[in-house]
C-alpha cells in the first residue's frame, strides 16, 4: 500500500527568498538565482553548506544551467537535479525536495526556480494539426472565458474583477513584477488580445527567481533553526491529464481531481483554507479553480469575488501575492514563489499583505501538458 507525504517524516519550509520578478533585462540568470537562494538561507538563518541537495526548476534556460549558478555559493558537491515541467516546474522541484527530506534521505534540501524569458521550444510529436499555430495561450483561455460567461450568465466585467483584486495585492508586494493598483476601467480599457481578454487580465511573462529550503525535524534541531517559524508541508499531490468528456475544461477537471486527493490525504476541507495561491495566468482561471478547489459551487465564484470573500481579510485570501497576473510568472520560479508567499502568510510575516489568523494554505499550479500540482501547508 502506497503511503502519502503525511505518513512519512514531517517536512517543514524553513527558508524562503526571491529575486524580484521583472520585465526582461540584461541581468544574468545566475544573479537572479543566487539572490533568491541567499535570501532563503538568510531567512532560515543557515549557511549554504547545510543544504544537502538542490533541485533547480527552469523551463527556458536550456541544458544544465544549475551548476554554473550554484558554484558561486561554494561548490559543496551536493546532488543537483534540473526539473522542467512547464508552468509547474517550480512546484515539481519543491515536491521532489519535500519527498527527499520526508523519505529520510536528506535533512535539508533546496528548491530554486529561475528563468529568463527565452523562446519556448517544443519538438514535433510527428502529428500534424489544423491551426495550433493560431492558438496562443490567451486564445485558449479566451475560449474558456466565453464558455464560462455563457454557461453561468456572468458578465466579462465581473470576470475582469479578478485582475483588479490581484493588481491591488501585487501593489503591496516588493517582489511583484506589477506593483500598481488598477481600476476596473483601466483593466477593461487596456489593449484587447482575444475576445474580452485585455492585457491587464493576462500574466506578464518575465524573469526572476524564488527559493525554498525544506528541512526535517532532525535538521531543524541540528542547525538550530527556529521551529516557531517552520511551516509544515502537510500534503503534496500531482496528477496529469486524462481523457475527459467533450466540453469539460481539462484545466478545471484536473484541478478538481488533484485537489480532492490532496485535501483528503491531508484531512483538510476547503472551508479550512485561509490562503490560496493559484495559477491565475488569465482572469477566468481564478474562478474556475476556486470553484473546483471547492470554495463554492460551479458558477458562483463571481459572488465571492464581489463580496470581498477572496480579499486579504476576507473568508479566504486568494492570490495575496498578486498571483500570476500581478506578481508575475517567470515559469521556473512561479510555483516556489507561491510556497514562499504562503509561508510568509502562515508565519504572520506578510506585512501589508497579511491575512489575519492564517493557519492553512494551498498552492495550486497547472502546467501545459497538462499537469497539476497541489501543496498544502500548515502552521503547527
Amino acid at each position, binding site marked *: 500500500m502506497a503511503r502519502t507525504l503525511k505518513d512519512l517524516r514531517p517536512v517543514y519550509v524553513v527558508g524562503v527568498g526571491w529575486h524580484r520578478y521583472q520585465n526582461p533585462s540584461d541581468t544574468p540568470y545566475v544573479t537572479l538565482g543566487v539572490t533568491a537562494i541567499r535570501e532563503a538561507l538568510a531567512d532560515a538563518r543557515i549557511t549554504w553548506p547545510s543544504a544537502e541537495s538542490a533541485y533547480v526548476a527552469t523551463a527556458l534556460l536550456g541544458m544544465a544551467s544549475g551548476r554554473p549558478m550554484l558554484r558561486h555559493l561554494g561548490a559543496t558537491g551536493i546532488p543537483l537535479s534540473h526539473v522542467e515541467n512547464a508552468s509547474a516546474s517550480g512546484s515539481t522541484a519543491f515536491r521532489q525536495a519535500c519527498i527527499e527530506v520526508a523519505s529520510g534521505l536528506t535533512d535539508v534540501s533546496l528548491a530554486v526556480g529561475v528563468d529568463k524569458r527565452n523562446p519556448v521550444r517544443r519538438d514535433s510529436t*510527428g502529428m*500534424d494539426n489544423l491551426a495550433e*499555430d493560431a492558438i*496562443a495561450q490567451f486564445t485558449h483561455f479566451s475560449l474558456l472565458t466565453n464558455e464560462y460567461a455563457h454557461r453561468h450568465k456572468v458578465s466579462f466585467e465581473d470576470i475582469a474583477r479578478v485582475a483588479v483584486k490581484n493588481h491591488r495585492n501585487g501593489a503591496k508586494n516588493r517582489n511583484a513584477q506589477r506593483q500598481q493598483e488598477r481600476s476596473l476601467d483601466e483593466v477593461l480599457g487596456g489593449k484587447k488580445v482575444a*475576445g474580452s481578454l485585455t492585457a491587464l487580465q493576462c500574466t506578464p511573462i518575465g524573469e526572476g527567481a524564488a527559493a525554498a529550503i525544506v528541512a526535517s525535524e532532525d535538521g531543524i534541531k541540528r542547525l538550530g533553526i527556529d521551529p516557531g517559524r517552520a511551516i509544515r508541508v502537510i500534503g503534496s499531490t500531482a496528477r496529469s491529464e486524462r481523457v475527459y468528456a467533450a466540453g469539460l475544461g481539462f484545466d478545471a477537471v484536473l484541478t478538481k481531481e488533484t485537489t480532492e486527493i490532496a485535501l483528503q490525504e491531508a484531512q483538510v476541507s476547503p472551508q479550512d483554507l485561509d490562503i490560496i495561491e493559484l495559477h491565475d495566468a488569465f482572469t477566468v482561471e481564478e474562478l474556475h479553480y476556486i470553484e473546483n478547489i471547492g470554495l463554492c459551487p460551479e458558477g458562483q465564484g463571481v459572488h465571492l469575488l464581489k463580496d470581498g470573500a477572496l480579499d486579504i481579510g476576507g473568508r479566504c485570501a486568494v492570490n495575496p501575492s498578486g498571483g500570476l497576473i500581478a506578481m508575475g510568472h517567470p515559469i521556473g520560479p512561479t510555483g516556489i514563489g507561491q510556497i514562499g508567499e504562503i509561508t510568509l502568510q502562515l508565519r504572520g510575516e506578510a506585512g501589508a499583505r497579511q491575512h489575519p489568523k492564517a493557519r492553512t494554505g494551498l498552492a495550486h499550479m497547472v502546467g501545459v501538458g497538462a499537469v497539476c500540482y497541489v501543496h498544502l501547508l500548515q502552521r503547527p
Partner: protein
Amino acid sequence: METLLKPTLYTSEGALLGGRCTCGHVFFPMQGHGCEVCGRHGADLQPMALTGRGKLLSSTVVHLHADKARATPFTIGKIALTDGPVVRTLLVDPVQQIAPGTEMVTALVPVGTGDDGSAILDLRFKPEH
C-alpha cells in the same frame, strides 16, 4: 485544379481524417503512436473519416497575434464533432459572433496559389445554416 494545404488532415469533401481504436475511442488526427484511452497501437488503430459536423462549444475573436503572417482579426472556434473528438481551429468568418450550441460544418477556403497556378485550400468551420 485545387490543392489541399494539409492533405493528411482532411479530404477535398471536408471530411476529417481521424482514427478509431478497437476500444471504441475515436480521435483526430489519425496517428499510430497509441490510443490515449487504452494504449493499444498498431493494427488496433484504424483510419476513420469523421463527418466534419459538430456543435460549437465556444469561439473567440483574436485581436493580437505574434506571427504577422496571420493577419488579425481572426476567429478560433472549439467544436465538439458529432463523432466525438473536440477540435479547435479557424472559422470561415473572421469576426462573426456565433452562439455556443450552433451546428457547425467544415468548409474549404482558398488561402493561396500554388506554383502551378492552382488554388491552395485549407479547412475551416462555419455555421451549418
